């Protein structure tokens, strides 16, 4: 099974891109990676269509783990997942983890070939209980 893909969704394009840079430094090209940040008008926010595109860009048959920052990033990501083809929907999850640390540790885990549930769980261990 190919390595799990990682998608980073922030209200801020700078944060999303910066977190993706940190992931890339850590795992190189071994993990499919995409980011989405900012609303459709270029302001702070998130866009369902852009998140969906990012999922397609980072698509892996092993699935995709999404790291988000705040509320709207999460709800828009969940909405984007529902818009995917039926065969893909069940292989994309939003991880409940801090966006930067979560993305880096999830990508490190994914680069070792771990399956989607493990990638997500390792990232979620960073969240306060």
């Amino acid at each position, binding site marked *: 099974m190919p390595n799990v893909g990682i998608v980073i969704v922030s209200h801020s394009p700078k944060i999303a891109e910066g977190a993706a840079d940190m992931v890339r430094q850590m795992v190189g090209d071994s993990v499919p990676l995409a980011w989405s940040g900012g*609303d459709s008008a270029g302001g702070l*926010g998130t*866009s369902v269509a852009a998140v969906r595109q990012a999922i397609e860009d980072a698509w892996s048959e092993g699935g995709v783990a999404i790291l988000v920052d705040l509320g709207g990033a999460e709800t828009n990501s969940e909405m984007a997942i529902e818009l995917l083809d039926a065969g893909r929907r069940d292989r994309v999850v939003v991880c409940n983890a801090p966006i930067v640390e979560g993305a880096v540790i999830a990508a490190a885990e994914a680069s070792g070939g771990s399956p989607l549930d493990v990638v997500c769980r390792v990232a979620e261990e960073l969240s306060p209980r």
Partner: protein
Amino acid sequence: MTPERLERLIVTVADAVIAHEHELTVLDQAIGDGDHGLNMRRGFEAVRNEARDLACKPVADALNGIGSRLVMTIGGASGPLYGTMFIALGKALSPDASNLAEALACAVGAVMARGKSQPGQKTMLDVLAPVQAAVAAGGEELVQTLPVIARDAALATAPVRAVRGRASFLGDRSIGHVDPGAMSAALIVTTICGAWET
């Protein structure tokens, strides 16, 4: 409902949301990120631009179309929340709209699932739930009573401590402010009722 009447209704609701951008923004600046007015305006401008096409469809498809446009254009958490509400309403509503109360219950349930929230947590649900309950209870004067119920419910979010959304980061400091999502929900309900007979 005729296409002409549905188009007028869509345009009237969109215009009301657009006209209240500033009010929603001020509320959101107090306890959120200050983008609710702008986001709602952007969403409802997109709906308004397509009001004629939307109004030519069966009501269920029109509601689905409104929801989809809001999801794609609002850009904040309210996009999926309002979008889900309209899409779920369209899915559940019978062609003659005789099951409105039941369909509204489905829509409220869908918003609860989307936002992982319950009524009483200082959100739009604090308006939607009592409005749905009032529709379910029925009565002759709903277009007069619903706006009062909706507005009172929105204002009643002020003393509540937010536990969902960005306002929850403020903890006790969210107390004393009306929730912007509750206010926009009340605005939509009030406008629909006001335009209903015309």
